[in-house]
């Protein structure tokens, strides 16, 4: 850790040092970001690849700490000292910057056609008319399983819900492994790895999500309650004392080989690859019966936009077009397995587990987490309430119907869909 930090610091100083000696006449672009972890990837791989193709443009990656990023960026934008390129948080935080005029409209940027409407939805106005950030990466939900455990118990990868629960029963009956590694202590695991993971299959991905925003569907409808009914059935398969099991506990249970299935997000891949001593595989959320269309949560997480006050807007646009290109996607996705490029062009990845995750995009329909766009603007906050209620349903303290009713009542109190 210390050496990593030291390396990062040294890299940081070397970047600052080299910025000063940029050739006269060159344009220097500064990138604002919260992804300090990615500093080495930008410095060693991404920026050299761009600069080789675009002589005359220098790029400097200048991250700040994640917890300080939003406040620091706001202050810099107000003072006019922010970088040319802004790394975008998804949804409302970036939308607010765009509305204030801090981010430029990028709808016409060459390269934007490489992204699907779902990919762009995190950085668009509510009516979808203007896009203001280039989508960079998303995370995909699914289940990671212990291949050795499955082989030993003779379980094949489940495709339907019945097969899924049959597999869980078999693991439980055998007793060597905890069937599923998940806890409800930190709440968000239940919502993010549970509800948002299996939910899209029930509410039919984007169709359901759009209908919910429009007000045509309600959280108390069958399609939205059914995932809670399935979650309630997970309880007997979780480890002893799962009510007090935290997120790191779940990760450790799985990587130590004590649990067979881990409801996951693809961001775990990097960590699991280094920690787990067994073979791993992954499967998408099971569907009701074989052959049904499957839906996956392919959640947009990070993008990049243009500071409207940038003096080097043309050079910055060249850079953003490159970020939108398959070249960038290939380098980025391979350097950070589990953070997938949102580019429509297929990206070749080395990591087997990451390949498995991304292959679902071909056969399933993508959607994003249902609570993120528009619906979490008011009080009570739908996302936070979903955390609490998902945990309640798994703990058995609320029935699926009661949980759904609470969420819908909370949403109704402030959200009036445009009719």
């Amino acid at each position, binding site marked *: 850790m210390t050496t990593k930090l030291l390396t990062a610091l040294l890299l940081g100083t070397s970047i600052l040092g080299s910025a000063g000696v940029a050739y006269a006449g060159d344009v220097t672009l500064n990138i604002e970001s919260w992804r300090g972890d990615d500093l080495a990837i930008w410095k060693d791989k991404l920026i050299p690849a761009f600069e080789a193709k675009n002589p005359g443009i220098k790029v400097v990656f200048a991250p700040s700490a994640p917890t300080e990023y939003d406040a620091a960026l706001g202050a810099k934008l107000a003072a006019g000292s922010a970088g040319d390129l802004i790394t975008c948080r998804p949804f409302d935080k970036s939308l607010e910057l765009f509305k204030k005029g801090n981010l430029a409209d990028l709808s016409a940027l060459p390269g934007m056609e490489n992204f699907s409407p779902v990919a762009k939805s995190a950085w668009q106005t509510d009516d979808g008319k203007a896009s203001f950030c280039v989508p960079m990466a998303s995370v995909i939900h699914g289940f990671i399983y212990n291949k050795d455990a499955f082989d030993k118990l003779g379980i094949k990868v489940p495709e339907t819900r019945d097969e899924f629960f049959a597999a869980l029963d078999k693991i439980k009956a055998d007793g060597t492994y905890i069937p599923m590694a998940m806890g409800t202590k930190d709440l968000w695991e239940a919502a993010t790895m549970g509800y948002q993971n299996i939910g899209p299959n029930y509410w039919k991905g984007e169709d359901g999500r759009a209908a919910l925003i429009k007000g045509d569907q309600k959280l108390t409808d069958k399609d939205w309650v059914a995932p809670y009914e399935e979650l309630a059935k997970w309880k007997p398969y979780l480890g002893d004392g799962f009510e007090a099991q935290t997120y790191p506990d779940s990760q450790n249970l799985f990587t130590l080989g004590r649990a067979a299935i881990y409801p996951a997000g693809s961001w775990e891949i990097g960590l699991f690859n280094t920690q787990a001593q067994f073979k791993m595989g992954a499967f998408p959320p099971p569907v009701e019966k074989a052959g049904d269309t499957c839906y996956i949560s392919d959640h947009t997480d990070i993008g990049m936009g243009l500071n409207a006050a940038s003096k080097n807007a043309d050079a910055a646009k060249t850079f953003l077009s490159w970020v939108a290109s398959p070249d960038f996607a290939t380098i980025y996705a391979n350097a950070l397995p589990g953070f997938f490029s949102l580019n429509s062009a297929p990206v070749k990845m080395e990591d087997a587990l990451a390949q498995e995750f991304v292959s679902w995009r071909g056969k399933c329909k993508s959607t994003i987490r249902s*609570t993120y766009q528009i619906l979490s603007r008011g009080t009570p906050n739908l*996302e936070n309430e979903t955390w609490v209620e998902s945990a309640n349903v798994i703990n058995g303290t609320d029935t699926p119907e009661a949980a759904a009713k609470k969420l819908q009542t909370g949403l109704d109190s402030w959200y009036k869909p445009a009719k």
Partner: protein
Amino acid sequence: MAAEIRPKRPFRWHIGVFLAPALLVYTAIMILPLAGTLQLSLFRNIEQHQVFVGLQNFRTLFGDPNWSVNFWNALRNNTWFFIIHMLVQNPIGVMLAALLSSPRLRFSAFYRTAIFVPTILSFVIVGFAWKLILSPLWGVAPHLLDLVGLKSLFTPWLGKEEYALTALSLISVWQFVGIPMMLIYAALLSIPEEVIEAAECDGITGMSQFWKIKLPLILPSIGIISILTFVGNFNAFDLIYTAQGALAGPNYSTDILGTFLYRAFFGFQLQVGDPNMGAAIATMMFLIILGGVCVYLFLVQTRLRRYQF
């Protein structure tokens, strides 16, 4: 005649000079922020401008069920948190102090230090250590209970709605029991020997000596401790935040005024912070604490009898 004209006393400017530093520092870091909070709670952000709305924020806090349910829940939890401290922490503190002041106890300095040490630990360490101790997966609690054959009593306390708040209160008691112990210990030591000897001459020894002689003499200290506990508990935040997170799960069962204020003021995850509503909650906390302290000062402390030796 001249003797009747009292010499004019010079203006005692040194009083002002000596008071000034404390007054200035206290005003700058306590009074001004407090006034700022009260002011903030009367405004609301409308179209990026702070607009004066009178008591509208308080009307929302108490009238809108989305806020009031959470507020009353937090207040109820906070009261329970306080009751546990009063029922467990302070009696144990008095008992430990009585034991420590017994002249026959050996190694009393060691015990005193050992019991006081958790008080100076960071909340983060305490929260994290207890989370691990009570963890159903790697914790020592299930094993220890197993050793004495009571494994069946173990439940994931921090994850159960009905136990989580009590468990956290007891963790906080564990951490802070050293403070009442130290204050009572000091009070017990200050009881003069003559009083004790006189009691012994009258045949009052052992337990009855504690109940009849010592306890009445340390009552003012117990009063002070109660009010310190009250203020500390209604300002509490750190332990719940480190052990349960800002959403104070499960199902808001450990949500106290501090965590409720934090979520409202700073926001959490997708919830955007609302400094004005946060200030309204902070104002309510201030009023609750002020009310409690006033009740103590005017009703309780004036009736406590003081003994002069």
